């Protein structure tokens, strides 16, 4: 990335040092983006190895089951913890939330800098798992007793989670204080951007639930290295305790990813349709906060086949199905924002439009999984794998990519749109369908997740095709996505220096980050005059 921020007053400091020592929320945002994209690249490579290995029966690419498990561990843990969460609540929130509320920086800039460095330490620690001979092989869920009895290095998993958790908790406090105290004078709660609301919601979830995950993995550490027996039934412990603590955090964590992605979409769609958010208050108070409210009472849907008591499984069936109410209201608002709009198409809007498809497909395929009786068969199959990739992995990644295209002119003063952007969008969109549709189909017939071989299914046919055929198609899809992700990365770097110059508000948005700042915004964001708003101002008011 370029170094766009003007450096007046810091002339004596070399550029690299300025970046490392920065407390400017915009630069910290860019640091998060660079780290998250690097994590995405490496974890994406791991996905390609996994797909190559599954392409044929038997073992071809990896040398042992343990190596495969290590790669799969890395892919899952890093995509969630080091790509999506930092990309959304690190990069996007850091760069744009202060601009959207008219603040000159976050409330605690130094703590903010500390957060990003904790994040970088975590990435380095995660990467070290390739260097040490006994890298973790316990999947991103880290269930005991395996994570305790394995000879591999579970502590690296625990410490990575600790670092990221610490970073997120500090971020949560910082951003909640920022939104509460540093909004521009005159900006009421019902005038916030959807992205600001969803980010607050995500940070509230992090603040409440991270300590639970931290305690779970810490007990794991004690069990493995200090000889305690929290999860060891032979000494009075309980293996189910860990799974409950883990998912008590990790279901809300999917909303830490889902909600900010929804917020970005709302902002892109409203700007490109030049329309107000349909039923804003319902979307905020029922949609976003309803999702937050219900997020803590549905976790057993991840434990439908874990041997939990029947009545809990049935209770969580009802609560899980009820997620459809807030998420449905959010979806309706998203659709309604298109109604009678004046839609302009560009790369950002194309990603946003494809997210409408992803949220439908991913959300609706979750309905069978909400029923314990259905999950008694579907659990741990590639059906689940396809479901959560559509709703979480792909939906959020597409929203983040759309957001990068949308905000690129703000960050660099240049457009990233162009033929490469369009071609790579289509590669990605086709690629995700080619990759994950076959996994739905074989998943329904029993193809398990987390398998490098599926010898036992070698005679099973679906519509005249073997599992292997479906896996081959999926692998072709994965390479299509790889190309579709590599091209824009090169394109971003090129466009940051040589792209077509853009004006301060290229999309004619009404949102503060576009109307009140230069592209890129200088130190302090808003020049010499503070932003002051009246009660009629709204980031979505185009009809005046």
């Amino acid at each position: 990335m370029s170094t766009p921020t003007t450096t007046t007053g810091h002339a004596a400091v070399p550029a690299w040092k300025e970046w490392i020592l920065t407390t400017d929320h915009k630069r910290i945002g860019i640091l998060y983006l660079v780290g998250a994209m690097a994590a995405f690249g490496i974890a994406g490579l791991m996905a390609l190895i996994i797909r190559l290995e599954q392409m044929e029966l038997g073992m071809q690419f990896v040398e042992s089951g343990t190596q495969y498990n290590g790669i799969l561990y890395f892919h899952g843990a890093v995509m969630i913890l080091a790509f999506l969460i930092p990309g959304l609540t690190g990069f996007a929130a850091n760069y744009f939330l202060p601009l959207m509320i008219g603040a000159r920086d976050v409330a605690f800039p130094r703590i903010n800098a500390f957060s990003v460095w904790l994040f970088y330490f975590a990435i380095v620690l995660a990467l070290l798992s390739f260097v040490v001979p006994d890298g973790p092989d316990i999947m991103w869920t880290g269930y005991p007793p395996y994570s305790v009895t394995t000879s591999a290095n579970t502590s690296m998993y625990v410490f990575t989670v600790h670092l990221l958790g610490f970073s997120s908790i500090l971020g949560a406090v910082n951003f909640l204080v920022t939104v509460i105290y540093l909004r521009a004078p005159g900006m009421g709660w019902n005038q916030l951007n959807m992205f600001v609301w969803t980010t607050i919601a995500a940070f509230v979830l992090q603040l409440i639930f991270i300590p639970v995950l931290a305690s779970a993995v810490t007990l794991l550490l004690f069990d493995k290295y200090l000889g305690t027996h929290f999860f060891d039934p032979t000494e009075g412990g309980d293996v189910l305790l860990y799974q409950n603590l883990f998912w008590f955090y990790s279901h809300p964590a999917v909303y830490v990813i889902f909600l900010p992605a929804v917020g970005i979409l709302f902002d892109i769609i409203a700007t490109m349709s030049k329309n107000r958010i349909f039923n804003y208050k319902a979307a905020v108070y029922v949609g976003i906060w309803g999702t937050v409210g219900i997020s803590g009472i549905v976790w057993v849907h991840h434990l439908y086949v874990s041997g939990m008591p029947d009545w809990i499984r049935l209770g969580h069936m009802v609560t899980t199905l009820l997620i459809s109410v807030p998420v449905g209201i959010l979806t309706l608002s998203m659709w309604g924002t298109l109604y009678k709009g004046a839609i302009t198409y560009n790369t950002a809007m194309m990603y946003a439009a494809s997210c409408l498809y992803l949220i439908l497909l991913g959300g609706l395929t979750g309905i069978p999984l909400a029923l314990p009786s259905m999950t008694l068969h579907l659990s741990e199959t590639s059906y689940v794998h396809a479901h959560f990739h559509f709703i979480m992995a792909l939906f959020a990644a597409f929203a983040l990519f759309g957001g990068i295209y949308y905000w690129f002119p703000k960050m660099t003063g240049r457009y990233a749109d162009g033929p490469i952007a369009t071609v790579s969008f289509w590669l990605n969109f086709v690629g995700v369908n080619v990759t994950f549709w076959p996994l739905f189909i074989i998943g329904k017939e029993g193809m398990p997740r987390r398998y490098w071989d599926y010898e036992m299914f070698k005679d099973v046919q679906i519509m005249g095709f073997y599992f292997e055929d479906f896996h081959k198609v999926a692998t072709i899809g994965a390479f299509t996505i790889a190309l579709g992700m590599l091209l824009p990365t090169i394109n971003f770097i090129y466009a940051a220096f040589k792209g077509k110059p853009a004006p301060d508000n290229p999309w004619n948005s009404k949102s503060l980050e576009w109307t009140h700042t230069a592209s890129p915004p200088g130190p302090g964001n808003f020049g010499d005059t503070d932003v002051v708003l009246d009660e009629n101002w709204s980031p979505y008011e185009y009809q005046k």
Partner: protein
Amino acid sequence: MRNFLTAMTALSVGAMASTQAFAQEVRNPAAEWEELWNTVIIDITIIGVIMAIAAVWMLIKYRATSPDQVGTAKRLTTVQAISFALIPAAIFMADDFYLAAKGWTVWNAYRRVPENAIEIKVTAYQWYFEFEYPDGTETEELKMPIGEPVVLRMTSEDVLHNFGVPEYRVKEDVMPGRITYIWINPVEAKETIVQCAEFCGQNHSEMTTKVSAVPREEYDAWLAKIAAED
């Protein structure tokens, strides 16, 4: 009054008789699973198609014709805003409860073990399953007599595993320190597999064995032969 009493007696006797009939009827969870799957898929396909058509229609119809054009959607009145939240919420909840009721019915088929089911003990190890039949015979594959329900009482000697039989549409975790169960109704002759479906380490992908439903005589002969070999 007399008539009324007679009617009530007849009704309650009838009800008791039907409950009993109900208790004796052995259900077939795998078939019920398939039926429920079809219902749910139709349900979500309808929602998905309606929403997708709406999205595509708007994305095409509302394209801007000039760069300064703005959207013309009107601000919702309070009544409209509340209706647009409450009515969809009611529709979603109606569908939720419809599916929950159906799901619950099938759930009962899975979890209520028929009386007199043959009880087989399953122990999981890294990376194989061991079966112990009522007569004490131990094997490394599962055979069931056709038409007789079988209940598996399962535990693990090391880490988490999962006993999953895709053909019978059922799976449940197997863990140390607890006993879990599933039951199977082998209605017809079948040869299939069980797979481990909970991550358990290096050879997780290879933790599998045969599962078959065979005629009673074949089942007895097989058990006798193994018992004799030991």
